[in-house]
């Protein structure tokens, strides 16, 4: 078991497991799966005095805890500010990282809120439930992200 957890999970294990979580949430609570809603409900709780925090921010807290667990069961918890080849594409200066990632996050938050879902909400859950809006969203953000990544790689040469 330790050996399996130490190496990267192959797609044919991780994918069906995530799909099973979508079904589990539907069966237990009759709720659609999706990560973005946690940020939305948290923002409403902080900035718009929403009375109850809701369950979706707790879902995100769970994702943080699950991430920690995945580190502990593989390479160990190693806090870092490095970010893979992001540091090659954009340089490793901390202020550059702060500006680029904050701006990217802003687009993710604003765009995702407009579209009503993210990669998990539209891309996995909405698609699986046959939502036409989710199909349009997924096709749009996939195509945009691929074109944007190709353009960025071409410009940076990395």
């Amino acid at each position: 078991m330790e050996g399996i957890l130490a190496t990267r999970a192959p797609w044919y294990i991780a994918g069906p497991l995530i799909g099973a979580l979508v079904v589990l949430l539907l069966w237990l609570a009759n709720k659609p799966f999706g990560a973005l809603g946690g940020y939305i409900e948290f923002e409403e709780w902080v900035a718009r005095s929403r009375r109850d925090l809701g369950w979706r921010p707790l879902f995100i807290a769970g994702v943080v805890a699950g991430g920690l667990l995945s580190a502990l069961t593989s390479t160990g918890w190693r806090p870092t500010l490095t970010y893979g080849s992001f540091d090659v594409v954009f340089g490793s200066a901390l202020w550059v990282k702060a500006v680029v990632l904050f701006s990217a996050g802003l687009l993710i938050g604003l765009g995702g809120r407009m579209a009503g879902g993210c990669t998990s909400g539209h891309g996995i859950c909405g698609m699986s439930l046959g939502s036409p809006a989710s199909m349009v969203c997924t096709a749009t953000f996939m195509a945009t992200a691929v074109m944007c990544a190709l353009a960025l790689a071409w410009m940076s040469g990395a």
Partner: protein
Amino acid sequence: MKLKAVGFTIGAAFGFIIGWARLTDYDVVRDMLLLRHPDVFLLMMSAMVTAAIGARLLRALHVRSVLDATPIAWTTQPPQRKHVAGSVLFGIGWSLAGTCPGPVAAQLGRGQFAALFTIGGLLAGVFLHDRLRVRRKAQIPRTTGQQTTAVAGL
């Protein structure tokens, strides 16, 4: 309370799988978007197919939810302009940050603290959307269909 416990637990399992599959790595996402490796696309498709089969089984068998005994059901939406416009912005942000709302939380748990910048921006983006909408609503009073909370999903 039970719903929150279910949310946290399913979130934790999701975060663990995201970390285990290294969807928290900038390079895994980048290689996917540069069409160098098909594995993340295959992961998403297999998740979708599994969920599609499971959800339809639950509905076909008239299963009721464990927590509130409601019949398992869902609603879908027709595509609108906001879906396309929002998804274009989302796609640009996704490729720049190399992450999206689920994996960025798992990054934080794994100790990849650059995620704090992305999460800060994400919350600011949600806040900005609500400010813009409040202003728009103030300009055009009494629009039809009072939407107060639109939860992400479909």
